[in-house]
């Protein structure tokens, strides 16, 4: 009887919804041969909340709190992107001061998102100390952003045509104190982690994404820049005030990045420094003036048509496709979220690696699951 039950030697393992390294409720159905992965199929939908269904049944203003709950690590960026998309549809232009304030807050939000990724990724690989340091810095950023937005994670700070409140002197003073402090800390992280032999062995040449694979699976953001492609929405398709700010697009050591986990780590760490530079320049160039455009209706009703807006969120290219029929409720609002396509490359990265490498690859892709399930 025993002979009959023993089939081929692969078995199914659920790296399932409740797993510390999936950063949310993502389920990986792995077919394993011992510890080596034969096949991986991500199963999604465990945190599907119907954002796009809500977008179709609510007016633009009532949908305002939803974008930041899709990607709660870069909540302010989603809020910013949503307002920019509706402004493009309605043909409104935010005053320059408001645009600069939005860019400052968006870049601070990018830093807090990368810090959380850094802490959580090192926690997945077994190092507990960077998690504590990274969260300590992240709390500084959250208290700075909380100074004017009032919330820590789910911001509804931008309005159609401007921002809700003006910058307070305390905000500017806190930011100016925070920038050198984080620069020192980033050097500490560099020495603590980048040259750590265990970290290098776990991430070097693991989960390599080639340029063709990145194009086939439309991977964007730091994962794409780690493959050596200098694609950054803020530079290739400049929006808001980014043309006036001098920053460079970080790719892993020039254009010959191999696109492995270590390069993705390096790209994100340098992006934090770039964001600090952007915040510094934006603070210097902050113009005086109003923070809300005059005469913008509280409940906008964009003219009929289809509009698209592409924004560079912390995880990659965030696209909003808006179809409006002139009423206050959109016909369709499609959110092209970066983590969706960043995850779709996993089934071809994992076969042949060990289960422990899954944790390293999954962490390096920096996924936020409600952004995938929407």
């Amino acid at each position: 009887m025993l002979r009959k039950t023993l089939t081929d030697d692969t078995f199914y393992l659920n790296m399932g919804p409740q797993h510390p390294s999936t950063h949310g409720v993502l389920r990986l159905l792995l077919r394993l041969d011992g510890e080596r992965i034969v096949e991986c199929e991500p199963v999604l939908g465990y945190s599907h909340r119907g954002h796009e269904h809500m977008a179709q049944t609510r007016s633009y203003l009532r949908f305002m709190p939803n974008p930041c709950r899709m990607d709660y690590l870069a909540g302010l960026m989603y809020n910013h992107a949503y307002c920019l998309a509706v402004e493009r549809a309605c043909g409104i232009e935010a005053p320059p001061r408001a645009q600069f304030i939005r860019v400052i807050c968006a870049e601070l939000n990018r830093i807090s998102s990368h810090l959380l990724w850094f802490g959580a990724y090192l926690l997945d690989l077994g190092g507990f100390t960077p998690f504590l340091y990274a969260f300590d810095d992240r709390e500084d950023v959250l208290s700075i952003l909380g100074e004017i937005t009032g919330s820590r994670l789910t911001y509804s700070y931008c309005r159609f045509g401007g921002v809700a409140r003006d910058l307070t002197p305390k905000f500017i003073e806190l930011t100016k104190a925070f920038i050198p402090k984080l620069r020192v800390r980033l050097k500490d992280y560099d020495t603590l982690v980048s040259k750590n032999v265990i970290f290098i062995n776990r991430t070097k040449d693991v989960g390599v994404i080639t340029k063709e694979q990145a194009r086939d699976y439309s991977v964007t953001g730091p994962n794409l820049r780690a493959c050596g492609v200098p694609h950054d929405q803020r530079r290739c398709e400049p929006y808001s005030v980014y043309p006036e700010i001098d920053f460079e697009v970080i790719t892993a050591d020039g254009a010959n990045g191999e696109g492995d986990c270590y390069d993705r780590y390096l790209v994100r760490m340098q992006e934090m420094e770039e964001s600090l530079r952007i915040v510094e320049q934006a603070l210097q160039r902050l113009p005086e003036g109003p923070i809300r455009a005059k005469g913008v209706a509280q409940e906008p009703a964009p003219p009929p048509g289809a509009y698209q807006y592409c924004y560079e969120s912390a995880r990659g290219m965030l696209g909003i496709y808006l179809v409006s029929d002139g009423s206050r409720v959109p016909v369709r609002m499609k959110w092209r979220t970066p983590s969706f396509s960043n995850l779709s490359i996993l089934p071809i990265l994992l076969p042949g690696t060990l289960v422990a490498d899954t944790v390293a690859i999954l962490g390096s892709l920096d996924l936020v699951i409600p952004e995938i399930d929407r």
Partner: protein
Amino acid sequence: MPPHLLTDYLFVLVFLLVGFVFATIPVLLAVLITPRGTGLKKLISYESGMIPIGQAWIQFGVSYYLFALVFLAFDVDVLYLFPALVAYGSFPWRDLIGIFLFVGILSLAIVYAWCKGVFEW
């Protein structure tokens, strides 16, 4: 049964008894004073919240078995070191070389396994 032998066996008996009692008290305590969960899916093996697919009786890589075998060799090796340590000291140099010889020969098993590639996963 000469009396001094009897007391020796008595010590062994007491030692066994105390060991047994020392082991069962926590188990008994746990059964008596803690509430018992009566959930339906309590006894399913935990697999991040899902119901495991297939059963565990499958063939899997031989490397796990070989790895355990190499550990076993050294486990038994330590077993024999105990009496050697007890009798240690009459001729210190001779005993030291004896132990090194014993452990050396056994560690050849590791070298053999290493060359055969048992440790490549």
